[in-house]
């Protein structure tokens, strides 16, 4: 005998303005099995929950239907409340009459009618609910951080600080990321390396942190608390354990003409290299694409000079497997390719550069040792033409673009206004004879001490800020750059003859983010930024349990924001790892072996690899025994997505809490 209670929530006016909640409570009272119905202003409030609990006890309810907001919002709340009153949590159903009804309809009559139908469907379902008990799974107390930039470093340090083991996987030969390439940081103008490299060293020295540099995550299986990752350690042809980072091999390497990616190709490096002096780990790496020994077996100089005997030309890629309880995506960003923005002549003149290239040109460890020179004069820095006397900055190159040009982004890259103000200010400070122009659409400088910083650039340092975009940069035969732009405030065309043009290029998620997102089944937006579980209330978690987000992989951020998010992310990871076991989700699939024909349709669609097959003995109607291949579901791995129940042609697969019969009952109730 069913005894169902129905609770209709007003949600203030959120529901009550479009749905006649009293009429809904009234209407469902007549339904078979319903012994109680009531409406209340805020069902999720303490008083509302008490009403539900008291009614469960007094009316000896066997099932509860709450007509309220989305189950994503408060299903857990009401399940918990019911459990406290002695009712199995899974005997609670939510009828979503807010997001799927009151919020999207305007008319009270049809809104009420729809709410009643949704309530009826939930009642029909709850009649078929069975009490479920969640299982428990242990938690592997180790975290994986994918990406070793400032985001990954901060997250790893904080997790290690809490006492948990953490592995950083970084695809470059060193950790540090983009911040290693930056000269100074806004708004304090302190040196990026001086604040970053100590953290890199902390990572290396921390016993809880293991760094896999020059490595990539190959695959991830498992689920929250129990992930297994395969990590590919790419062959660097140098034994990490033996290499002391002395640099003798780099000194002697005869292959000098390799574009130096650390300096964005502004100068060259050797075929064996250490990216920069403070690299962590400070270990040499051989670039097999350029190494003469690797290419044609003739050279071997580095091996000869290496006192530690660390060079190993036969080193192979190595796959290691490790178990993790939590995984952090900290895959970072890259400036976009701007070859489709050639009105700025980036590919036509060496003196048109990106802002990140300018960082290298202004860095004491950069290709010009910190002297600002036109890239076309890098090899003749003493020439009196080498120093750029007029510099034009162009903001929003590829950002905030509504055009369909390949590579352009609709979003604001967020960091460019501030770093351009920083560049302009630093240049005016160091070279007061330089004229600096900044073309902008808007100057966006919210943030602590940010607007003050920008105003200092304009007022104190006399940077010419011009509202308007640059239409064309024309390299002249004499090497100068004719910049044509519009000044929207004085409404005129402006022509500036510049020595250097700096493009504030949009940033985009690293190219590897998409494949890592697929591996982790973590959702992404159309721009390939990871999406958060809730844009406001769960900003550092992915909707996929056990996957967390740190830094720019979630959206454009500056360094302070990245570090804030990285630490918040670590707190969430620690909150998970500190648990000894996790309560599982009992709403998982199971296979009726008598109906299963072993066709593999379910296994093919299962995104979690939860389904396996085995041969089992079955007694036939004629009393003989037959061996059949049947599916079975690993409930610890199954996430309850239901894909298999749809794919199964014989109806053998069913989902606890969402059985085929329950869904059909809901449909019947809707169509009644």
């Amino acid at each position, binding site marked *: 005998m069913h005894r169902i209670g129905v609770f209709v929530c007003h949600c203030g006016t959120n529901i009550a303005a479009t749905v006649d909640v009293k009429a809904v409570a009234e209407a469902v009272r007549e339904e078979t099995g319903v012994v109680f119905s009531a409406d209340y202003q805020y069902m999720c409030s303490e008083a509302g929950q008490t009403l539900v609990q008291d009614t469960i006890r007094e009316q000896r309810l066997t099932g509860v239907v709450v007509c309220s907001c989305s189950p994503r919002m408060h299903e857990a709340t009401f399940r918990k409340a019911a459990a406290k009153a002695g009712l199995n949590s899974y005997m609670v159903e939510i009828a979503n009459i807010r997001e799927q009804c009151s919020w999207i309809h305007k008319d009270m009559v049809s809104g009420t009618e729809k709410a009643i139908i949704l309530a009826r469907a939930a009642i029909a379902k709850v009649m078929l609910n069975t009490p479920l008990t969640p299982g428990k799974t242990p938690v592997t107390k180790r975290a994986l951080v994918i990406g070793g930039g400032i985001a990954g470093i901060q997250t790893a340090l904080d997790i290690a600080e809490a006492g948990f083991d953490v592995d950083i996987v970084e695809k470059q030969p060193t950790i540090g990321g983009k911040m290693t390439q930056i000269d100074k940081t806004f708004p304090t103008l302190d040196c990026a390396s001086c604040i970053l490299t100590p953290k890199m060293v902390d990572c290396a020295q921390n016993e809880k942190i293991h760094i896999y540099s020059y490595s990539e995550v190959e695959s991830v299986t498992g689920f929250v608390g129990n992930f297994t990752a395969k990590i590919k350690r790419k062959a660097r042809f140098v034994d990490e354990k033996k290499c002391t980072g002395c640099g003798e091999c780099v000194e002697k390497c005869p292959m000098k003409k390799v574009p130096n990616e650390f300096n964005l190709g502004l100068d060259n490096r050797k075929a064996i290299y250490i990216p920069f002096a403070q690299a962590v780990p400070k270990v040499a790496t051989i670039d097999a694409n350029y190494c003469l020994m690797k290419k044609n077996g003739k050279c071997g100089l580095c091996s000869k000079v290496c006192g530690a005997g660390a060079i190993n030309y036969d080193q192979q890629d190595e796959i290691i497997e490790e178990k993790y309880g939590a995984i952090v995506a900290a895959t970072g960003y890259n400036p976009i390719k701007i*070859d*489709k*923005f*050639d*009105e700025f*002549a980036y*590919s*036509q003149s060496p003196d048109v550069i990106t802002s990140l290239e300018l960082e290298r040109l202004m860095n004491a460890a950069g290709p010009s040792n910190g002297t600002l020179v036109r890239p076309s004069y890098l090899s003749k820095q003493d020439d009196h033409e080498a120093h750029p006397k007029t510099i034009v900055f162009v903001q929003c190159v590829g950002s905030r673009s509504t055009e*369909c*040009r390949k590579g352009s982004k609709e979003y604001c890259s967020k960091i460019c206004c501030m770093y351009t103000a920083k560049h302009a200010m630093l240049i005016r400070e160091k070279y007061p004879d330089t004229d600096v122009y900044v073309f902008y659409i808007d100057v966006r400088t919210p943030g602590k001490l940010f607007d003050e910083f920008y105003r200092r650039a304009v007022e104190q340092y006399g940077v010419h800020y011009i509202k308007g975009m640059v239409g*064309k*940069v*024309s*390299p*002249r*035969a*004499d090497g100068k750059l*004719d910049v044509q732009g519009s000044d929207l405030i004085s409404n005129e065309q402006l022509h500036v003859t510049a020595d250097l043009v700096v493009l504030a290029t949009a940033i985009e998620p690293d190219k590897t983010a998409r494949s890592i997102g697929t591996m982790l089944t973590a959702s992404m937006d159309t721009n390939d930024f990871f999406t958060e579980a809730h844009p406001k209330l769960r900003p550092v978690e992915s909707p996929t349990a056990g996957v967390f987000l740190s830094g720019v992989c979630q959206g454009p951020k500056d360094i302070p924001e990245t570090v804030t998010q990285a630490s918040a992310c670590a707190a969430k990871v620690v909150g998970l790892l500190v648990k000894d076991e996790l309560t599982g989700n009992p709403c998982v699939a199971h296979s009726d072996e008598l109906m299963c024909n072993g066709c593999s349709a379910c296994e093919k669609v299962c995104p979690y690899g939860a389904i396996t097959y085995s041969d089992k003995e079955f007694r036939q109607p004629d009393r003989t025994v037959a061996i059949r291949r049947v599916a079975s579901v690993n409930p610890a791995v199954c996430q309850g997505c239901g894909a298999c129940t749809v794919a199964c042609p014989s109806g053998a697969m069913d989902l606890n809490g969402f059985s085929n019969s329950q869904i059909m009952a809901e449909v019947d109730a809707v169509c009644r």
Partner: protein
Amino acid sequence: MVYSYFPGCTLKSKATELDRKARLCAAALGFELEEIENWQCCGGVYPMAKDEIATKLSSVRALADAKAHDRPLLTLCSACHNVIKQVNNDMLKDADIRTRANNYLQLDEPYGGETKVVHYLEVLRDEVGFDALKKAVKNPLKGRKVAAYYGCLLLRPGAVMAMDDPENPSIMEDLIKAMGADPVVYPQRNECCGGYLSLDDKEAVAKRRNKIVKSAADFGCDCIITACPLCMYNLAKNDCDVPVLYFTELLAQALGVE
């Protein structure tokens, strides 16, 4: 390959050399230009008005004629090419314009943007191929420094014209190389010549002309080539005394078909 050829008015008056040489070169390179019967003026730039349908009709007639013959429509003049290709795009993508144009014209079969519109340069690149063209060259233009002038209409809007990168094109430079000459790349090659402003603001056009021609001359060109009669008109008499030619004139020299 036979193309339905839309010469356009200017090629029958001021720009006869563009037309005549193009036909000679086509014959030498093995493709046929069959002039569309009773073609009418493309309307200059007027068809670009979004709210006017009558100005687009002549383009639609020409396009429908090419479709009836199951041939691509070929143009030479940058303005005609731009107008016809944009109208074709409208007929393909804009249901409102498509309906109104078809209602007006009452063609035997409604036209919906099916015809492929190609520029002569695209045929040279994609059908003939610059490698084959190079082999067909009888008088390589050795030592000539040629600056290609694209103007604005030939390549833009980039998504519709889809001929080349509008900001850093290479199709004419590749043609120049195939003819045995050295291409001169200069920044003003895809800027506007002033267009119809020559009718009432000669000063503005003179400014544009000098900027473009000086830019090309600074980079050491000995002549400029163009595909557009209006660009030719605006650039021809310049202070730098740089000769301006239609690309077909140079091509005819190289192929030895004069």
